[in-house]
């Protein structure tokens, strides 16, 4: 791919959600650039990434650690495993700049996580900053804003 179309960007977002729901985490890791950042702010409309707390602000090493941890023999909070489910709205393509190689989407979605008898429903918006690497779209940055990011939560164990 040399110049992704709007549909390419939208398909990418849908495919990412499907990978997560299918538990294909190693494939999902391949969607990231090595300097990718996955951010879930704690405050509504949070601006500062570093000097106030976030729910998540992780580089590729940490994201990979999460995936490796899921597989661990002694990962007791994943015995039994959590399952997740994304219902995403058609993504808005907010930026499609082939010359700059910058692509931004915004996706509204509902997310369900379940383990044993518990089920959690969250509403969120995701902003993806995508780039082309060797002709493939990659995630350089993913920001997930929970609608109720400042609420008290129990465990949220999977990726939104």
């Amino acid at each position, binding site marked *: 791919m040399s110049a992704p179309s709007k549909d390419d960007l939208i398909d990418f977002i849908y495919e990412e959600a499907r990978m997560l729901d299918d538990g294909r985490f190693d494939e999902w890791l391949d969607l990231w650039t090595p300097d990718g950042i996955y951010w879930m702010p704690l405050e509504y409309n949070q601006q500062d990434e570093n*000097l106030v*707390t*976030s729910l998540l602000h992780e580089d590729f090493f940490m994201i990979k650690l999460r995936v490796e941890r899921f597989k661990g023999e002694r990962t007791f*909070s994943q015995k039994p495993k959590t399952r997740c489910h994304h219902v995403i709205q058609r993504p808005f393509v907010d930026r499609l700049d082939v010359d700059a190689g910058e692509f931004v989407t915004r996706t509204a979605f509902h997310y369900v996580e379940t383990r044993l008898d518990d089920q959690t429903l969250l509403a969120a918006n995701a902003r993806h900053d995508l780039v082309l690497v060797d002709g493939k779209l990659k995630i350089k940055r993913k920001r997930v804003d929970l609608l109720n990011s400042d609420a008290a939560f129990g465990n949220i164990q999977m990726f939104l």
Partner: protein
Amino acid sequence: MSRHANDRSAIAALVRPTEVHRDIYIDEDVFQLEMKHLFANCWVFVGHDSQTPNKGDYFTTEIGTQPVIMVRHSDDEIYVLHNRCPHKGTKIAIDRAGNTGKFFRCPYHAWSFKTNGCLLAIPLRKGYKDTGLEESESVKGMAPVGAVKNYRGFVFARLAPEGVSFEDFFGSSLSSIDNMVDRSPAGRLEVAGPPLRYMHRCNWKMLVENQTDTCHPMVAHESSAGTAIKLWEEMEKPEGTKKPMAMEVIAPFMSSYEFFENMGIRTWPNGHGHTGVHHSIHSDYSAIPGYFEQMCEAYGEDRAREILGENRHNTVYFPNIMIKGPIQQLRLFKPISANKTLVESYIYRLVDAPDMLLQRTAMYNRLINAPTSMVGHDDLEMYERAQEGLHSDGLEWVNVQRLYQPGESFEQEAIENGTTERQMRNQFDAWTKYMTMTMDEAAQ
């Protein structure tokens, strides 16, 4: 008739020298007695005064399960008031923080109160003429808590009007707060953003005990910290690559039993204590450029070294907070019911210190204390399994025996092997004391 009435002997019998009865964790009657007695008699953390920097600024929270408002009055002092209109009981403020100006106004019938709680005005007051309102509880306004103390910015309150003084309650344990505040070249902390809020379906005391439980990290956190170390070692990287900040934070959780034994635990009277007397998992963080120089400038080199040489790990202030001096963090374990606890994890900025320190602190908070934290998932799994397991009738007692010394007393400060459960026993000693001090003996 409830299983545990207001009966001093019956409550005291729940705590033995080396074990405690499961009802302490799972019985709703015991929980209600804790709210009525323990949380009324102890000095309980409310908030930090930087959360209400200006006159009229308020912050809503709970002491035990009691809703309160912390507010800065026109005299610049912090007041802690029950968050209840003296008229019909309406909560005066329900947002987490704000500025109310010169007075609170109840949204239901517009009774208004000064920010020290005193009644200011009632609309159509003539309706109370000759009704004896002056003699009522309502006319006193929003009730203040029993006593308030602002210690170096940390605001504590005692709900009971009479009781143990702040100084007697905390004694030398205040040295941990001192060390945290002294780490600012200006000797001052400021809250940095809102707390993480993590709901736990377990009893609040399990969380407090876990803070000085040094035999669980290498087991329960093998999944997160152990995997992190493995992943880092396997990663292809140039020789001498510096460990990222996240690794510096998470890797020490896998330290050996020997490391934790040698770390030491200190206990103080009234249920306070800390891990990390000699060193801790916070000892080996990289130096932040410029910080030591700032500290020397502010305190002189000897004193600066003394302050920064202290690397206390977790300090428990009984009943329900833990602070980490070296990384300016406070966790508040808010009891909601016998099987439900809200954990709020705050971080503070060292005024005049480099931002990099706060960045590490914010990172620590989200890596360890967030509902999205792997380390948090490890711990919560254990608490919830325990909360459920305790309903088993196979055994009614919980063991707190590690390195028990027959006849041990908690009246004096003591330093012990870092894997002792003495601090847990110390907490239960204080629990019995503050639970029963205002109880009667059972009626014969």
